[in-house]
């Protein structure tokens, strides 16, 4: 089961919401698997000045999102990139084995947000970050292929709140 610390983050998540005009955004996960994490960062003097998340998912997805914003806030980008999934898990006092992938998702979201910042500002992208980014893109492409039917609907749901096929049942 979940640790007390995990439930604390879940019940009172830190730094949730959206940042208007963010310097970097990382979007990972997919709605079919049930975890979607969108992470926004504001960067000042090479440091993460502000960070917020929007997450669709279970207790583990929400609490890892919350805890990674705590871990990343105030850190330099280089330091933030060093945050590992184990650090996320340890900060929560552990996660059930079946939920470990949620901590990976949080780290991936941060990586992607920082990558997005670097590429938007035409900064030199460290080789290891480039590699990580390409790996994540590859995985995303694989998931998209696996769940072809729904992927177009994800952005639609974000914009309109529903897919066109859905209609409300009245009783």
């Amino acid at each position: 089961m979940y640790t007390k610390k995990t439930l604390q983050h879940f019940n009172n998540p830190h730094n949730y919401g959206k940042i208007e005009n963010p310097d970097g955004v990382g979007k990972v996960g997919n709605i079919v698997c049930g975890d979607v994490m969108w992470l926004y960062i504001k960067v000042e003097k090479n440091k993460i000045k502000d960070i917020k998340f929007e997450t669709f998912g279970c207790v583990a997805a929400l609490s890892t999102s919350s805890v990674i914003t705590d871990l990343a806030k105030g850190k330099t980008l280089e330091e933030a990139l060093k945050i590992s999934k184990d650090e996320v898990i340890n900060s929560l006092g552990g996660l059930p084995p079946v939920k470990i992938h949620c901590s990976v998702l949080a780290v991936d979201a941060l990586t992607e947000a920082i990558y997005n910042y670097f590429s938007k500002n035409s900064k030199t992208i460290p080789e290891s970050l480039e590699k990580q980014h390409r790996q994540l893109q590859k995985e995303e492409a694989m998931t998209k292929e696996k769940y072809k039917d729904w992927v177009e609907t994800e952005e639609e749901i974000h914009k309109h709140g529903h897919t066109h096929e859905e209609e409300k049942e009245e009783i």
Partner: protein
Amino acid sequence: MTQKEKVYLDYAASTPVDPKVVKAMLLYFTEKFGNPSSLHSYAQETKEALEQSREKMANFIGAQPKEIIFTSSATESNNLALKGVAFYHQKKGKHILVSSIEHDCVLNSAEWLKKQGFEIEKIPVDKYGTVNPEAVREMIREDTILVSVMHANNEIGTIEPISKIGKICQEKGVLFHTDSAQTFGKIPVDVRKMNVDLLTASSQKMYGPRGAAFLFIKKGTKIEPLIHGGGHESGIRSSTENVAAIVGFTKATELCLKEMKKESERQAKLRDKIIKEILKIPDTFLNGHPKNRLPNNVHFRFSFVEGEAVVMMLDYHGIAASTASACSSPKLEPSHVLLACGLKTQEAHGSLRISLGRWTSEKDVKYLLKVLPKVIEDLRKISPFKKNVY
């Protein structure tokens, strides 16, 4: 925030044992402990209690005492029904039909039979989770030996047209089994009216103890035993009978039937109130049949949030409910019931089951109606998916 209330709304998962039931059982642990198969007076006492229970249970469902085989759980009864019939009748055929929304213990028994060379076909359901009896008629073949359709679904509460399906099976000369685990004690169960050859009933969903259940097997229905031993239960289920649990199960049934009409009306009223109020939350849908559903079952789907998070946040507020979302399952797979009803995987994530029971009060419902909309609102604030992007 401190936890002030504690409200249990997961009666479909398990019920507390009624104190009157506990009282009826106690003697059979301490004083009346004899093995019913022995000869002495200790045995006579328990044998008598056992046979009285069998007689009462038979009366309750319109059966003969000899047609009641006590088992340890609904899972065991369903295993016995499927595997027992399959093995006895395999010379006649190897084709078995099960509905696509059965409980895992039926589906996984069927899966296992598939590995033994049987052919399993799943009967589809409509968007409410209802089996069409005519579809069953069309799917029955020359070599079909068994049809199994549950009386009511454990997740979404839809009640199936059992007597119609049973009639068709009778006409076609195919054995028919129904799993009544969610209905026994809650809505009328009569094996003759329902046209069933086999019926599963369980104690732990109706204020009885765990460890007791039965399988009704209509006289003349041949079945291969799964547990071999001293020949208990007419040789169909060996094992020294769990008399205390069986006595408790019987007492629990008695109490349920006495109050059934009044109690199901009371719960249905609370159920309908919850449905009406919660559907006011935007992007909220009812799963299961709007009318043909268990009096104590409510099942929703909320867009943009995930079920495990909903259940855990309700728990934070002291409310116990359940979900069959993928994230809450050990294999991270969405509910087969919701998928069978035509929901897409991403739509099946935000599911919530609320199940009422004997001790659910209007005050409990009021508290739920106060807390649940707030929980959904809070989780949607965190979610990237929402109607009004702020």
